[in-house]
C-alpha cells in the first residue's frame, strides 16, 4: 500500500528496553480497552470485553464455515492477483520498453492508479454478475495499476549495459524479456506484486461487504448487521494478521534474494 520508505536502524537503547516498552504499550492498550468495555461510557458491545473477543476468536478458528469463506476470498484474491498481476506485468514491460507507448499512455495509468476503485463495483456487477466473478474483477482492476506502474518504472532503471549485452548476443524479443528484463528487475516486480496483493485484497473484500453471499467480507458485514461485535473484531484481527503476514512474506522474498547474492 504505502510507499513508506525504509526503516532506519538507530543505534541507541538496548533490545531489552525496547521489548519492555513494547510489552508495556500492548498491556496499556489492552487495559484501556478492558476498562472502556466495563465503563459503560460507550454503547453496549461497541467495545466488547477481551474475554468475549477471545471466545469469538476461538469459535471462529474452530468453525468450518469460516474456513470455507476464507477459502472463497483467498481464491478470489489469487485469481485477481493472477489476472491483474500478469496483465500489469505485460503492460508494464511494454510501457517500460517503448518510450513512445510510455509517453502516449503512461500518464493515464499514473493518474488512474490512485483513484478509488470500489466505485466501479456497480458497473462490474452489471458485467460479471453478483457472484465471485465481480469480486475478482474489482480485485483485478485494483491490482493492475500498481503492478504496471512499478514494472514500467523498474524497466527504465535496468542497467543499460545489460540491455546492450542482450543486443550484442542478438537475443530475440522473447529472450530479452526472459533472460535480461525479468531477472534484472525482479525487485520492482516483487514490490509491484506486494502492492498489488494489498489492493487486490482490499478490492475483493470491500466488494464482498457491499454485495455477496459468501466470503470473509460477507461474514464481516453479516456480523455487523446482526450486531455480533466480538465476532466482527475476531474476524478483523484474523484478517489483519493474515494480510500483514502475507505482505511481510512477499517483502522477505525480495530480501532473501538480496542476501543470496552477497
Amino acid at each position, binding site marked *: *500500500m*504505502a510507499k*513508506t*520508505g525504509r*526503516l*532506519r536502524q*538507530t543505534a*541507541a*537503547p538496548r533490545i531489552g*528496553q*525496547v521489548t519492555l*516498552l*513494547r510489552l508495556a*504499550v500492548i498491556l496499556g492498550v489492552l487495559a484501556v480497552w478492558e476498562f472502556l468495555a466495563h465503563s459503560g461510557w*460507550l454503547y453496549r458491545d*461497541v467495545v466488547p470485553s477481551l474475554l468475549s473477543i477471545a471466545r469469538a476468536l476461538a469459535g471462529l478458528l474452530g468453525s468450518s464455515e469460516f474456513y470455507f469463506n476464507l477459502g472463497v476470498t483467498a481464491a478470489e484474491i489469487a485469481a485477481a492477483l493472477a489476472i491483474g498481476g500478469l496483465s500489469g506485468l505485460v503492460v508494464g514491460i511494454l510501457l517500460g520498453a517503448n*518510450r*513512445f*507507448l510510455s*509517453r*502516449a499512455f503512461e*500518464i*493515464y495509468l*499514473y*493518474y*488512474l*492508479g*490512485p*483513484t*478509488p476503485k*470500489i*466505485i466501479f463495483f*456497480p*458497473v462490474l456487477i*452489471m*458485467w460479471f454478475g453478483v457472484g465471485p466473478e465481480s469480486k475478482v474483477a474489482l480485485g483485478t482492476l485494483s491490482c493492475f495499476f500498481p503492478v504496471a*506502474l512499478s514494472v*514500467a*518504472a523498474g524497466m*527504465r532503471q535496468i542497467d543499460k549495459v545489460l540491455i546492450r549485452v542482450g543486443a550484442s548476443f542478438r537475443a530475440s524479443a522473447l529472450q530479452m524479456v526472459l533472460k535480461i528484463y525479468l531477472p534484472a528487475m525482479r525487485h520492482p516486480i516483487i514490490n509491484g506484486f506486494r502492492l498489488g496483493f*494489498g489492493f487486490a*485484497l482490499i478490492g475483493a*473484500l*470491500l466488494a464482498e*461487504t*457491499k454485495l455477496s453471499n459468501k466470503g470473509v467480507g460477507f461474514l*464481516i*458485514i453479516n*456480523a*455487523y448487521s446482526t*450486531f455480533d*461485535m466480538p465476532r*466482527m*473484531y475476531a474476524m*478483523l484481527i484474523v*484478517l*489483519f494478521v493474515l*494480510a*500483514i503476514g502475507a505482505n*511481510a512474506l512477499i517483502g522477505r522474498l525480495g530480501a532473501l534474494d538480496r542476501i543470496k547474492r552477497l
Partner: protein
Amino acid sequence: MIGAAALRRSSPGRFIAPAVGFAAIAGAFALGEVLVQIGVIDRYIVPPPSEVIASFYRIVAEERVFTRFLYTAGECLIAGVLLTLFGIAGGVLMHRFKLLQQAIETWVAALAAAPLVLMYPLFLVIFGRSMWTMVIMGFVSGLPPVILKTIEGIAATREVLINVGRSFKLSASQQFWKILFPAALPTIFVGVRLGLIFALINIVGTEFLINFGGLGHLIADLAERYDLAGTYAAICFVILVSILFFIALEKAERWLRPAD
C-alpha cells in the same frame, strides 16, 4: 511511481505521442459507441458513451453534484487537518524518544500495509451513519505515511544545519522550529500527500459502501435506481475530481521542494 513531469518532458515531436494516446482512447470510446448502437454490446449493460456524456448535465442539475462534492471535500479537509496534526506530532514524538521509535515504528509500517478500510463497519457502529465515520476512516488510513515520513524527514536533516543551530546555541525548541522542522518539511509533505490520497480513496469508498454522504453515495444511489448512464457519468466525475486533486497535491509538493 514516476513523476508525471518526467513523462511530459521530451524531445522533438513531443506532442505526437500524447496525441496518439488521446486519439486511441477517443477511438476506443467511438468504437464502444458503434458497438452499442448496432447491438453487439447490450445497452442495458453498457450505455452508449454519448448518453453518458449527455447525462453529465443531468447529474449536475438534478443530483446536486456540487453540494455533494463540497460535502466530500469537507470530509477530506477535516481528515487532512487531523492526520497532518496527529501524524507530524506522532513522528516528532517518535524522533524525540528513540526508544519509542524502536519499539513501535515497525508497527506503524505494518499498519500502513494492513487493509485498514475493512474497519469501516467498526466506525459505523461507533459513529453511526454520519460524516464522522468517513472522516475517521480517512484519518486512520492516512496516518501511517505521515508519521513515517516525518521521522524520515527529521532524521535526514543535514549535519551542517544542525551544527549551525548548535553554534548559535539554540534551545531545543528553537533548534526544532528553526532548523529541523523547516529542513524536514518537503519530506513531511510527501507523507501528507500520500496520507491525503489514502484519505480521499477511503472516504469516497466508505461513502459508496454505506450509502451516505457525498460523491460515493451519489454513485451507489444512481446504481440502485438503475440509472446506468448516470452511474457511468458519476463515476467519470469522481475520477476527474480525484485526478485534479492529485495534480494539485503534486504541484504543491514541487513548490515546497528545495531548488537544489
